[in-house]
């Protein structure tokens, strides 16, 4: 009995995870408006190769932001993802180049580094009772410092396995595949697993969650460790695209990742957020940057425009939600 009902349930669950990833979402309108404007402004925008470019360029931030989604849903913030991405990629390259271990080990080492760094932040939040802002700000600094120590400030070449992450597989760029797979996994974790549902509860009302018997600390450590693993993957993706791990890689990406999550409709107060929204948020950012390059906007004015577009994209979403509410 149980097995016969379990099998179709699993099929449905994967499909519905994909569905929820792609389903209509907050900033979607903002993204579409942006794309339409660029389509009108330049013929180079809506071409196959350019859309693929955007996908590749969005991948790093998107993967970071998927990990960030766990943290923000659980009511925290993770400022360390950029540094942890760099540290993990560097550790991965170092294991391969300096320690001379086999290539697949380099991927494992990278992911383990990310998980460890994330778990340390998580322990600081859960047991050290540090505000997540502080725990991860500390980790931002520590991880970047360790990256520099490990690399002595110089780029290190990556293993072929990591470089594969930046290559193409039968014409399809691997970063886009990684983006899709990690997105589906993140959506699945948030929607279908116990710990995922518990993240929403902890972020929504930590006291109510605690009184319901949810092990808040375990959830918090899991959340930050997951964000660390996602950061590691993003770091290796970036390193793979460049065939080298850079000491300053991904610095400042934390703000982009948080912005992607928030543009996607999550609340920094916790308890609200969807992976599909985060993906759209990351695409909004990638499309803006791509579009401004295509239009060859002066780099001074670019920053002005990026700021305005972010405000407008979220503004459209706010308006849209206000209208449907009442």
């Amino acid at each position, binding site marked *: 009995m149980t097995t016969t009902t379990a099998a179709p349930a699993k099929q449905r669950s994967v499909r519905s995870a994909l569905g929820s990833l792609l389903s209509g979402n907050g900033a979607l309108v903002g993204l579409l408006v942006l794309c339409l404007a660029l389509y009108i402004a*330049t013929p*180079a925008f809506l*071409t196959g*190769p*350019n859309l693929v*470019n955007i996908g*590749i*360029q969005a991948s*790093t931030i998107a993967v970071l932001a998927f990990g960030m989604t766990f943290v923000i849903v659980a009511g925290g913030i993770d400022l360390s993802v950029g540094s942890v991405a760099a540290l993990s990629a560097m550790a991965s390259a170092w294991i391969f180049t300096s320690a001379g271990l086999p290539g697949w080990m380099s991927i494992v080492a990278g992911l383990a580094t990310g998980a460890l760094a994330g778990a340390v932040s998580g322990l600081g939040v859960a047991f050290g009772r540090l505000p997540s802002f502080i725990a991860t700000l500390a980790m931002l600094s520590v991880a970047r410092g360790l990256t*520099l120590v490990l690399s*002595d*400030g*110089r*780029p290190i070449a990556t293993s072929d396995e990591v470089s594969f992450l930046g290559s193409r597989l039968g014409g399809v760029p691997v970063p886009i595949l990684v983006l899709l797979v990690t997105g589906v996994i993140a959506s699945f974790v948030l929607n279908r697993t116990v710990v995922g549902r518990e993240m929403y509860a902890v972020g929504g009302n930590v006291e109510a969650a605690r009184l319901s018997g949810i092990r808040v600390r375990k959830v918090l450590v899991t959340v930050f460790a997951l964000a660390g693993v996602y950061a590691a993957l993003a770091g290796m993706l*970036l390193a793979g*695209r*460049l*065939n*080298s791990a*850079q*000491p*300053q*890689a*991904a610095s400042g990406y934390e703000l982009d990742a948080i912005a992607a999550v928030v543009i996607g409709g999550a609340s920094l107060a916790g308890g609200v957020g969807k992976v599909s929204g985060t993906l759209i948020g990351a695409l909004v950012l990638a499309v803006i*940057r*791509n579009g401004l*390059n*295509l*239009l*060859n906007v*002066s*780099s*001074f004015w*670019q920053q002005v425009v990026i700021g305005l577009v972010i405000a407008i994209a979220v503004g459209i979403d706010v308006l849209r939600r206000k209208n449907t509410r009442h």
Partner: protein
Amino acid sequence: NRGGDAASGQQSVTLSLSTLSNPFFVDVRDGAQDAADELGLTLDVVDAQDDSATQADQVANAITGGAAGVIINAVDSDAAGAAVAPALSDDLPVIGVDRAVNGADITSLVSSDNVAGGKQAADALAAAIGEKGKVIVLQGVAGTSASRDRGQGFAEGIAAYPDIEVVATQTANFDRAEGLDVATNLLQSNPDVVGIFAENDEMALGAVQALGDRAGSDVFVVGFDGTDDGLAAVKAGTLVATIAQQPKELGKQAVQLMKQVLDGEQVAKDAPVPVQTVTEDNVTDFLQ
């Protein structure tokens, strides 16, 4: 007994670098460290992380910390003047390295000329593309003097070639990953580009990555700095040229000058370290 180090009896000198997360400045440090070890100086290296105010703070800390002299690699030439003013008024020798220190009468400046380097880059690129065609420029962090000077030199240099058109100028913040993304996007909107000038090797290597097989055959990239990776790319033919500064030489000469000053010798106000255009022909001279 300023700058005395109780443990070793050595004089200590502070080297304030604009950043240490760029291999170029790591090389400056290494050159300086080697020279210091050789000459029996203690070298305190501080990293301003590309922030002028941090640099000013660090110089102030060096003075109270008892340094015998300050070697400064300015984050920004204009801002560094105020930063070293207290050191100068304390009669500490101040030697600039790589970038000028404006508005202060520093002891000496060891530098390579970025504007001249930009011009050389323009010539190298023009030579590679047969003095005609469309090119794009990848800028460094907007507002930094390195970006300003190299960009200015390149613009002046390229103006001498009427058949070359700069079709796009975009920033990639001296970063390899951004260089890759921005170059990809610019190639999308300007498919007929034949040359790229990047204001440092990191961005140039990103552009090479964006070009893939086309690098060095259809599209020619010129970088700046002559980092290890940059030189390797020149050797591999993916980069046509890089404007090599000699970072280790910069660091070394700065320390040597400092030693001379501390020993009471007179030194010249300017100690130029040549920049060289590195191409496939002479790259082996630069690779160790």
